[in-house]
């Protein structure tokens, strides 16, 4: 459960359909795969997305230390002091403008250096009352669509009181409708969100 947004990083590059942020460090409160996040839109609204990839860049200095018996102090130096360039990729699934949630792509992507924050539970619940974003995720090219959608549904269920069992059943029904032509894919997805 998340009551207040957590600052996740700043936008490095963006397009209408997805964007990437740079973050200093991987730690427990940095949003994980499938988390709902938002960033300001240049038109005054908010772009809403799902984290679909977290990449820790190759660091030749770290590579030199991999074979050594490294003490805790060195590990902490790398994790907390060095600018470890973890990059978080976000699939855009909708936006919010004038207080209204719109489950389709925004007119403008976020600008460079905008701050990405996690959505609160209330915002996640409000956004996922409408399942329109399922199609955007299922058709995503760079993300792993089934894993991403399932992860987002688990996040959305967790944001609801009582674990969101009823929500997952509704989501499963919607998936059955969307994937009626692909029983194998549907089964895989349902297994991933089984309450």
């Amino acid at each position, binding site marked *: 459960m998340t009551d207040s947004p957590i600052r996740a990083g700043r936008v490095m590059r963006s397009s209408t359909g997805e964007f990437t942020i740079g973050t200093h460090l991987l730690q427990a409160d940095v949003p994980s795969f499938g988390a709902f996040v938002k960033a300001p839109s240049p038109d005054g609204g908010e772009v809403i997305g799902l984290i679909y990839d977290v990449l820790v860049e190759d660091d030749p*200095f770290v590579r*030199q*230390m991999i*074979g*050594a018996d*490294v*003490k*805790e*102090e*060195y590990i*902490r*130096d790398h994790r*907390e*002091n*060095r600018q470890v360039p973890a990059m978080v990729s976000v699939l855009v699934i909708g936006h919010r403008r004038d207080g209204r949630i719109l489950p389709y792509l925004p007119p403008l992507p976020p600008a460079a250096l905008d701050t990405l924050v996690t959505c609160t539970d209330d915002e996640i619940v409000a956004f996922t009352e409408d399942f329109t974003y399922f199609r955007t995720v299922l058709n995503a090219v760079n993300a792993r669509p089934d894993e991403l959608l399932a992860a987002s549904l688990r996040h959305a269920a967790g944001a609801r009181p009582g674990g969101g069992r009823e929500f997952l059943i509704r989501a499963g029904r919607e998936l059955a409708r969307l994937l009626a032509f692909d029983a194998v894919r549907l089964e895989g997805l349902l297994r991933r969100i089984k309450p």
Partner: protein
Amino acid sequence: MTLELSKVAPRVSELGRSAAQRASTRASTAPRIRDLLRAHRVDAELREKVERAVKLRWVGAIPQTEPLDGAIDPPALPDRMTLVAADGSQIYPDRHGVALYYVINVGSIVLRLGTGDTPITESEPAVYFDDDDLLGEDDYPAPAQAINARRAVAEMTRLATVAVEEAKLAPTVALADGNIALRVQQEGISARERARLEHDYLAQLDRLRGAKIATASFISRPGATSVVRLMQLAEQCALDTVAEFVKHTKGRPYDGMTDTPVFEALLEPGQRSAIFRAAATQWSAPYERAGHAIHFFYVNVGAPTQPNIARVETPEWVAHDDDLLGFAHAALVEQCRVTASAYPYVLTRADELAVITSAEKANFEQMIGVELLRRGVEARPSEKAATKAIARYGKRR
């Protein structure tokens, strides 16, 4: 392309041949010099020769109390020890740039081994633009040698300041990169500035000595020949002909042999050589007067199959204190094992914290340009710099 590789190819071939020949000569000569070290490991007559030669400005290694062929294992690392390192970088003044200034950036790290604490890192930039800082006696911007010397003083000041505080908590090793002596006996630095820089630098060594800090500098891939010169003195000079020998012996001994292959043949991984005192040179005289006479040892920071010899310089009060010397030796061996590069971790990090990249320099210049424009001052490089930049950008030939 203005460097026409086809024209330099023959010289590259000669360079390769020459390097291979030198490597072969050194590989065959190293065991002989090592055997000489063993033969003269405790040699009173050699010490007498050295004493006489030093008075005649001979520049070899001066034996101390340990046998010359010593191969000494590092002591156990204490459970709790602190390593401090500092390094610096700079932007040199450029009278063709958008403004006349220079920057010295000093990076430092404090690593408290045995605590599990996150190391304390810092980068401290200083920007200079007053005429007194910028201009030499000839009214031209201070030359690179002067900036380098000022940077070295800033590095040593930071090293001492941080290390003195840490030494109150645990045994502390302070590490610097390169030679431990400040080399200011150069053209381009006025006598007055030389004296001031040397005074400030020595004052930092005084602070380190006062706090009993194991202070050392690390020289990677050393090219020194001082121990080889000592063996030349042992082998080729009689006690009563030292004066003639020193007077007439010029050039590099044993066909350009350096100390490194000798100690590759002598030291196992982790071991250090005996301690030697560096013969007085123009660099070292002020250090001797101040009680910081430069001593050194070699240490193998490589692996069993890949020896890697580094030269470590220390002031005399570290060289003659078994505890401080042991701390420095053990710390360097441990540091070089952290990475696969046989270079101390804390020095790598201090460099990383200090370095000013070309992108950062460009951003800084842009910041200056914006500030100047905001105040109505035209901000642009000289015609020469601007034209060269344009030509180089579209360089065809």
